[in-house]
């Protein structure tokens, strides 16, 4: 599957969250969406998931618009993991993960064997199988994030749009979650993940899209994430290195101010 945003433009009141954004993501690749707070990352994710009304432009799914797809097709083919999700009611983790199978259900019918297998696989992949009988409120922030990731994995979609899937995780689980997302991509699905950790972004992603001020400022392989791009987007200077042949990037200090780019602003889409 291929999802395109074409000239995506979103305004909240007088504030432009996205201005003429063009980008495309496809199955089989792992894309990192990075950029400073307020760059429009969450808004772009919502555009790709067909959750965001646009002032101009559109999202296309294999060339078609969302309303041209069969009912429920988009929900089966595209999974969306919201940023910092919360559950209203204290559901058990396995019941919560099973919600990911709702797009595959027929009306008034129970879960199929495939549904149950998908839930089990998702629980194991996100390392929350041992927490299945706990409620979300009885989990730590990181465990909660993994349970919610399992919910999105349970959809078994062709495209997984994950908004900050590793932000709350400890270092070990950050690494395992990124490896998991990459294995999802290697398995043939597309993954788009909003990330803040530059090292995780360059190590695990096939491609990085850098947003700043509601515009795409870079789109390419991790090697395209140059010091100039980082300085323009984030306003930071970084320290780079290599360990066992893999790059790492550590933000070090604010770079000398450059006009226009990387202006900090509150994230208009909110949490």
């Amino acid at each position: 599957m291929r999802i395109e945003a074409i000239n995506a433009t979103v305004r909240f009141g007088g504030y432009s969250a996205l201005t003429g954004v063009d980008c495309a993501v496809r199955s089989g690749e792992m894309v990192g969406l990075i950029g400073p707070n307020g760059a429009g990352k969450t808004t772009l994710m919502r555009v790709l998931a067909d959750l965001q009304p646009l002032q101009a432009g559109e999202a296309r799914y294999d060339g078609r618009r969302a309303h041209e797809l069969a009912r429920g097709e988009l929900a089966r083919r595209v999974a969306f993991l919201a940023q910092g999700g919360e559950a209203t009611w204290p559901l058990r983790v396995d019941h919560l993960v099973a919600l990911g199978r709702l797009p595959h259900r027929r009306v008034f019918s129970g879960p199929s064997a495939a549904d149950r297998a998908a839930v089990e696989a998702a629980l194991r992949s996100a390392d929350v199988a041992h927490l299945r009988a706990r409620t979300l409120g009885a989990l730590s922030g990181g465990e909660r994030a993994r349970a919610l990731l399992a919910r999105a994995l349970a959809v078994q979609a062709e495209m997984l749009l994950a908004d900050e899937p590793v932000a709350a995780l400890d270092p070990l689980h950050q690494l395992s979650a990124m490896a998991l997302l990459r294995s999802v991509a290697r398995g043939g699905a597309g993954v788009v993940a909003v990330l803040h950790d530059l090292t995780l972004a360059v190590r695990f992603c096939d491609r990085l899209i850098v947003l700043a001020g509601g515009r795409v400022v870079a789109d390419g392989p991790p090697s395209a994430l140059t010091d100039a791009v980082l300085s323009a987007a984030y306003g930071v200077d970084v320290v780079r290195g290599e360990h066992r042949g893999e790059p790492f990037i550590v933000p070090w200090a604010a770079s000398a101010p450059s006009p226009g780019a990387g202006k900090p602003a509150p994230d208009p889409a909110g949490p």
Partner: protein
Amino acid sequence: MSGARARAPAAWPLAAALGGLALAATFASLLVGYVHLDVVAALGDVAHGRPSLAALVLVQLRLPRAALGCAVGFSLGLTGAAMQGLLRNPLADPGVVGVSGGAALGAVVVFYSGLAGAFSLALPLGGVAGALVATLALYALVGRGAGTMTLILAGVTINSFAGALTALALNLSSNPYAAYEIMFWLMGSLADRSLPQLWLALPLMLVGWGLLLSSAPALDALTLGEDTAMSLGFDLKRLRLTLVAGSALAVGGAVAVTGAIGFVGLVVPHLLRPLVGHRPGRLLLVSGLGGAIALLVADIAVRLLPIHPELKLGVVTALIGAPFLLLLIDRLRREA
């Protein structure tokens, strides 16, 4: 609804048990009354078409009361659970979208205009009309795609406006007996209801139940917020319209016949929620059955209590419900 049968086998026995209890409570309600009645003999008379006094009491007095108790209780419990699921707020009650206030006002207008005495269905018809007007007012707002917060605010506004107009009717009432009757009707009761009233309200309630129960998967999905529910393929605008229509039919039909009966729709979902693993979709049917049991038991209690004139049902449910809700709140606070 049958969502997770294989993973949580406990839920269907729960619904079956509550269904059995609701049936038993309905039958118990037939047994209770102010005149002695051999229910078995009366049932025999009814079955054989013998027009005995016992058969008359059973069909004209006991049956409407028991059946309405069951149906109205089911409506209140089901709608309460649905509204709490939609608004993702445990304090929502069946009347939160304004239909119960509208239905009460409609009935009061009928009282006030003196139409109530004209024909026996004037009162419930007025109630249904009031619920309809309130619903249309609400649709005028949410139909344009307003969000859940707008829905709550509109509901609160409609409820308080209907309340103000009801008070105005009482205030302007030149006939103290009419005012007295209005006040008593507003307290809610199942006494002296007739079969035609049942036939008027039941079809409305049945359609409402269907709409509410069909929303179970969407309410489950809504547990994780509106974005996630939409990404799972649920149209939230349609969900809101479906639930508003369902609650208008279920609660509007109920209030039109019985007057406002509080706390059942608020307390019953709270009480049963832990038994279904807090899943809002699963809660719907179970909460409806629980509401039927609660209302029938309360209605049996008002007839068994040696207090005359009989206590109003709405008064009893509030008297029991309010302290009960306090206990639940206390428990929630401890768990938090």
